[in-house]
């Protein structure tokens, strides 16, 4: 009977609470049906787009994963936390100082979420080095 206890705990850990241990189920992006995909016209130029370099993206990924861990279950949250945890309401700025220092600022804007919340001092600014380490976080 004793041998079942670790097994039961292990199975329980593999279910809903996994994100707490740093593991989460990778969710593939939803794909539009073929007829919708066929209607998409790709642009001839991306000149008007926002360009982030590879090092910027690497720093951004580190900060994003720390600020909102990928396993966070937004469906279990209630507003305004649900809004705060959703990337669509978080404006982001990346500032590269040099090859070894990046600042990433997350600034939630909840005016368009639900009735329009104002959450004072929500957000964060991270300092990330070129090795992907978090040097500091400004609350």
């Amino acid at each position, binding site marked *: 009977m004793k041998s079942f206890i670790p097994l039961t705990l292990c199975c329980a850990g593999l279910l809903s609470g996994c994100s707490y241990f740093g593991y989460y189920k990778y969710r593939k992006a939803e794909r539009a049906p073929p007829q919708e995909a066929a209607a998409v016209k790709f642009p001839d130029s991306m000149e008007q787009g926002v360009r982030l370099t590879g090092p910027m993206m690497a720093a951004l990924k580190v900060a994003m994963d720390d600020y909102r861990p990928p396993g966070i279950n937004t469906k279990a949250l209630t507003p305004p936390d649900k809004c705060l945890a959703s990337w669509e309401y978080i404006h982001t700025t990346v500032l590269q100082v040099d090859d070894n220092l990046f600042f990433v600022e997350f600034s939630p804007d909840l005016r368009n979420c639900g009735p329009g919340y104002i*959450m004072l001092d929500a957000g964060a600014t991270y300092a990330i080095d070129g090795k992907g380490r978090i040097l500091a976080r400004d609350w």
Partner: protein
Amino acid sequence: MENGLLQVDGPLAGPFKKLEELATNACGLMTSEPGASNGVYGSEYCALYYYSPPDQAFFLSYLSNIKSSLDSETKTCELPRAVNDPSHTDAIVVGGAHTHPHNREFSRRDLSIAAHWSPSRFIDKNTGQVLNRNLLMFFRERTGECRAYAYDNFTRIVSALRDGELIPIGQVKNDSGDLRMFEGKDWLP
């Protein structure tokens, strides 16, 4: 409230004839709350201030410490949006007030468009008095001195309370909340 926004009761303090008088008193009251001046381990409090046209005076609402439950948002404060004061049912909710436990400066996010509350200007029909929406911020120094600041959402000017007067010290220059300090002005006198 039914729409999910917060409502607070009032008044906690008042009447005050001038906004500066309210800011002076509210700074002392709000920064004395538990944890409100505990530095990086502290927490924030929010409140509303409102104006009663018949009384021609400002009042401070009771406080709210409702914040985010997310681990990464330890020092937040949801700004209430309505006040329940049966003795001043025609009150105009002019603006919000909050404490900073660890920083005497407005954050960029406090000054960003995300923290703007529309409309940003009111006119008392009877007296013609113009009231601009302000976000007040209070911080208590370790020496015990209370610092009060106001961010006018209409003019985008940041003022510091000094000797009972709100003195403009800078102006927000974009929607991200970047502040340009006026010549010779700073957060401290």
